[in-house]
């Protein structure tokens, strides 16, 4: 009897949690169509003016493009770097392995704020570089690389090397073997490493905040708007737009994963 109640309570909690998690998203979605200068209740009627305002805001649209460019480059470069490092870590013994391992872990365990200010002192203080999307990219690769490395290490440990040996026995050289055997088999792992790197970059505020110049990424743009109370309802349209873009993207990636499996 009590057990039954316990189970019911737990399912109830689960539903409540999902509602709690989705309520803010719902507020943003609905708010973007509410004809009220401050999004929220009461409902003042349907409008598209916040969407028009958002679509006319060049800096908002630019920040979306910037964010995706940085995130895609981060995903690609960090995954390549992570794959290479994983090859060394899983298939070879080498000196300095312990140091390498702890260097991989260190950036993961420090708050992004610290990495941001540290790289700021390097780029602005020591090298006197202009801050740009490139400096953000460098910072994002630093935080994505350890994740990509760990994911690829996990995939390589479970990798059946006899397939590669078979290819080599049949006369393929290392490059062909890599291209035709290793790479296709590692695709799901590469995909999840890239996805992890991509979202890390897209979500990051703290590093981009310190390393951005005139070109902003989405979180830095949003922060500026929120901090100085600029164009607030416009932000609900931005959120709804971002939500739709990433929903489509994650649907594609989920379907892609399913087909591969």
């Amino acid at each position: 009897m009590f057990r039954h109640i316990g189970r019911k309570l737990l399912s109830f909690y689960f539903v409540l949690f999902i509602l709690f998690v989705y309520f803010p998203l719902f507020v943003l979605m609905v708010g973007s169509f509410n004809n009220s200068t401050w999004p929220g209740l009461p409902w003042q009627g349907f409008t598209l003016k916040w969407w028009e305002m958002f679509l006319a805001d060049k800096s908002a649209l630019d920040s979306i493009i910037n964010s995706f460019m940085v995130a895609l480059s981060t995903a690609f470069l960090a995954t390549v770097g992570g794959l290479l490092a994983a090859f060394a870590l899983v298939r070879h013994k080498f000196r300095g392995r312990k140091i390498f391992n702890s260097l991989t872990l260190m950036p993961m365990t420090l708050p992004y704020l610290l990495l941001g200010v540290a790289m700021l002192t390097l780029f602005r203080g020591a090298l006197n570089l202009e801050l740009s999307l490139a400096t953000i990219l460098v910072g994002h690769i630093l935080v994505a690389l350890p994740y990509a490395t760990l994911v690829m290490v996990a995939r390589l440990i479970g990798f059946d090397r006899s397939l590669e040996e078979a290819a080599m026995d049949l006369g393929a050289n290392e490059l062909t073997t890599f291209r035709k055997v290793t790479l296709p088999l590692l695709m799901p792992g590469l995909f999840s490493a890239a996805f992890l790197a991509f979202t890390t970059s897209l979500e990051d505020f703290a590093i981009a905040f310190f390393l951005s110049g005139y070109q902003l990424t989405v979180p830095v743009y949003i922060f500026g708007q929120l901090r100085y109370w600029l164009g607030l309802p416009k932000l609900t349209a931005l959120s709804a737009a971002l939500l739709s873009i990433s929903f489509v993207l994650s649907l594609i990636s989920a379907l892609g994963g399913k087909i591969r499996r």
Partner: protein
Amino acid sequence: MKRENPKKKVKITEKILNIFRRSKTLRVHTYLLPSWIWYILFFLAPIGLLFVYSFWRMEDVFLIREFTTQNYVNIFTYREGMYVRLLGKTILMAGAITIGAVGLGYPVAYYISMRMEKHKYSALFLLMGPYLVNYLLILYAWRIILEPSGILNYVLVTIGLPRQEWFLWNWWTVIFMDVAAWSPWLVFPMFASLEKMEKTLLEAAADLGANPRQAFMRVTLPLSMPGILVATLFVLIPSIGEYATADLVGGSGGITYPVPIENYFHKALQWPLGSAMSFLMLIVILIMVSILLRKVSLEQIMESL
């Protein structure tokens, strides 16, 4: 001519491959090169530079590159140790955020792993929803909800309750917002370790006369501890360094240690003092991480990614 070209190409690749075939060391270090570059140039060097900066000082707008420990003295003495108290408060808040987010997330992980039979992964996918938009936007949504003239107050007033003005602009706002932002994410590592558990152990416990509560306390909870620790690691460290929440919804009561750091780097141009404060935070965090990492292994972190 046309025929020779591909042959030549093959020759060159073969030559390069041969260099790599001959030396294993070269091979390994080529693999590691991008990572070494990034870790040394963009991690160790900046942290080292931060350390150096923390011993320099500013005179007006000029950086004086002379050794001084004044910055560290300042941190501990400024307004009777305001910064040290601020750091303490930040750590306490991060602790509360961790307990809140892990506590809210654990029953969800437990439910998905133990009670759901089908659609486990769809349920997990559902939890990724809020990460489709940036967490700053989630923060903004909660601000719309909790404002004095916000949605929650509108509902309260409509049903005849007094308006509440204390939701925003204080330390509990920061804790609440970070818990709300983090808890769905923490379900993943805890789910991973619950999934790994042998479910037959629970039957064994029941056969030996344990009631469900005893079975949970003695079997399930200890076996899911690695997941809980990984989740703790995931949330505790970032919430010490969390800057945006405190700045956007914390008000004066919700100021945390990173807020003055940002200020010293961006507005006040007091990099040496900011560096010293950052370095103090780094040391505190390294101590915490080394305690946590003694209990969690690298494999456990990997499995929950």
